[in-house]
């Protein structure tokens, strides 16, 4: 279903177009998925914003009990992403599997009411919430990829990520408004969050069309996509190289929290402003997601992906080095996300057969996510052993080398 997309795609690409025009030219399915993600992000960021207050004040729990579980969840989410991608391809039901993921997360919001003050129950609810996120990511990105013409795929992902980020911005504001209106009643935030998440599921069901196969045979010679077919994708040279380089770059990507901590130490940011630092990154991500996606369509997505990592290298050097200021570092950090988060699936999408698009994107993103987890652990260790600056400098030197290598090898130039 192209709301206005088919007509718009025929039009010549104008050099400078206002944002509204860009969105209208994007396939309707992508805009619909953007709306779904926007509403879902408001819902989930509302809960994230109040969770510490709820645990300490609403329940009187000791929040130090929760920190440890975080790494475990990240690992479980990565595995569920593979499952989500595979099942979506196997059933040939991308929308249904994405919908299940969104639905599970929506129900989890009510789980907070049911869990009461039991620590294991709250841990389980958090895990279910993230499981839903893991399941839905790959089929959703596959839907974006399959509903966009290959030559403007970067723009589609840019529009989706920008809309998603708007939701992340609005979430904490919505939580504050609900807490104010409900006179500090945390349950009201969970109920509102559930309502919004369920609205997002309805929007998905009604606005996003079921994807029907364009190609007659999704995987030649195979009746149904299997896990073997999923791994078989890696036998295809260009996709394999794409996965390997994305993971290699992920291995030396400094995790957000470390960057913010180092930034706070360097410029002695007030503790009250510290939690607002991610908003700086998000703001730049929001502004640059569409322009960089479109630029990637024109000049080559891998180039943008590499440039994004260079932006991260410069951001970390600013944080370590004697020059620069904190807002420039945050802006570069936001540019890094804008140049990588949506650009990578846009770059890899056209390489994957339609019947295995969700599986392929799941493999790619899981590899990247697992590499980034390893990176977080490594930076943590180096940080403890050597302190901030040497740890970050060594890591960034390694990232620079891998980035240069990835630029020289150019795994995607053959297809682009």
């Amino acid at each position, binding site marked *: 279903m192209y709301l206005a997309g088919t007509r718009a795609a025929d039009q010549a690409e104008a050099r400078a177009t206002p944002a509204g025009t860009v969105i209208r030219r994007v396939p309707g399915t992508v805009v619909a998925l953007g709306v779904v993600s926007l509403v879902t992000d408001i819902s989930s960021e509302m809960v994230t914003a109040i969770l510490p207050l709820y645990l300490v004040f609403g329940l009187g729990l000791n929040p130090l009990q929760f920190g440890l579980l975080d790494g475990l969840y990240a690992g479980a989410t990565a595995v569920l992403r593979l499952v989500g991608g595979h099942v979506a391809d196997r059933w040939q039901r991308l929308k249904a599997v994405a919908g299940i993921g969104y639905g599970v997360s929506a129900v989890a919001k009510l789980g907070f009411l049911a869990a009461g003050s039991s620590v294991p129950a709250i841990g389980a609810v958090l895990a279910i919430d993230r499981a839903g996120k893991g399941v839905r990511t790959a089929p959703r990105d596959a839907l974006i990829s399959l509903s966009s013409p290959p030559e403007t795929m970067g723009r589609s992902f840019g529009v989706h990520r920008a809309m998603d980020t708007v939701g992340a911005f609005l979430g904490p504001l919505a939580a*504050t408004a609900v807490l104010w209106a409900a006179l500090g009643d945390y349950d009201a935030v969970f109920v509102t969050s559930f309502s919004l998440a369920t609205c997002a599921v*309805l929007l998905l069901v009604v606005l996003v069309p079921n994807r029907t196969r364009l190609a007659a045979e999704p995987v030649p010679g195979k009746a149904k996509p299997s896990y073997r077919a999923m791994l078989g994708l890696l036998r295809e040279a260009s996709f394999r190289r794409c996965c390997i380089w994305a993971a290699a770059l992920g291995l030396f990507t400094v995790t957000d*929290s470390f960057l913010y901590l180092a930034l706070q130490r360097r410029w002695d940011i007030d503790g009250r402003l510290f939690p607002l630092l991610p908003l700086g990154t998000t703001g730049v991500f929001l502004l640059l997601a569409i322009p960089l996606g479109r630029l990637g369509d024109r000049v080559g997505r891998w180039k943008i992906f590499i440039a994004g990592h260079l932006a991260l290298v410069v951001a970390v050097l600013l944080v370590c080095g004697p020059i620069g200021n904190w807002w420039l570092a945050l802006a570069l950090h936001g540019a890094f996300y804008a140049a990588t988060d949506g650009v990578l699936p846009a770059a890899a999408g056209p390489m994957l057969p339609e019947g295995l698009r969700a599986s392929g994107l799941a493999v790619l993103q899981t590899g990247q996510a697992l590499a980034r987890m390893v990176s977080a652990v490594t930076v943590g260790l180096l940080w403890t052993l050597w302190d901030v600056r040497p740890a970050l400098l060594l890591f960034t030197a390694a990232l620079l080398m891998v980035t240069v290598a990835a630029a020289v090898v150019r795994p995607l130039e053959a297809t682009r």
Partner: protein
Amino acid sequence: MKLKIIGLIAGIAVLLGGAVVYVASARTGGVTVNAVPVNTGQTLALAPANLFFRNLADGPDHGKLAAVPAGEPGGARNVGDLSCDRFAAARGTAICLRLKPDSLPPLTDMIVLDANLKEVHRETLPGTPSRARVSPSGRIVNWTLFVTGDSYAATGFSTRTGLYNLDTQRLTKSVETLPIFVDGKRYFASDVNFWGITFAADGNRFYLTMSSKGKTYLIEADHKSYHGDAIARNVECPSLSPDGRRIAYKQKVATGKWRLAVLDLATRKVTNPPDDRLLDDQPVWRDNTTLLYPLRAADGSTDIWSVGLTKPPTLLIRHATSPSLGGGQAP
């Protein structure tokens, strides 16, 4: 398609309408009558004969600072206008920690009060209230707040402990720069967390908990020379007895589970008072042999209990937390 769109709009209307109704009912759902006898509009003062606490009984005065005569803890609760999430007092000085309403990320007001509970100083700090104490001299107040976002994990939590000296008006937002020595060697780690300060009568020596790499240490620190030594392990939320001989603390028995324990500083012997229920707070010494602490009951309510070093526990005040004696610890 048209039907589907109508269904969508109806569905969204029902869901958002439901949320609005829920929010509206949360607004008016408050109880208008106190569940326990309360004398409102009282002028409270830090008399040693008073026992202070945060009132948790249902009703309009939920969350207010309340006082009862120490000899009659079950009597009617006297409340004024002051609300505190955490409260502590000693020798004519009190500290009140209060979460700032409608602040995201959360902020806490740290309010220093005089003997008539008049505000003399205020700081707004990031985090949510966790622990509060006043040194026995009444000249240094200290607090611990839970903060989010500055640990490795995005959803991880850490604690930030600070001091305010009333004489010098010096604010130490965090004691994280306190040089620490473990087994005589300077200890460095990026994941160090401090919480739960307790001061000695000289207003200089203090104890607190340091955690790093999954271990907790009891730190004995010197305020003037500003350094600390680890003197014991597995000690959290220390509380020094009025005679300076013992440290009462919460002893970890499993992840997220603690029980009350007492360390004799001279002999280093650890004993457990006869209450093995799970607790999560910094205990308060009522005198040299009696401890006060809040405990969560099975129904989720919190009550203040009292236990002797060898005498069995007794329930002191129902629906209450953050106990403190008006004059501090009895000598």
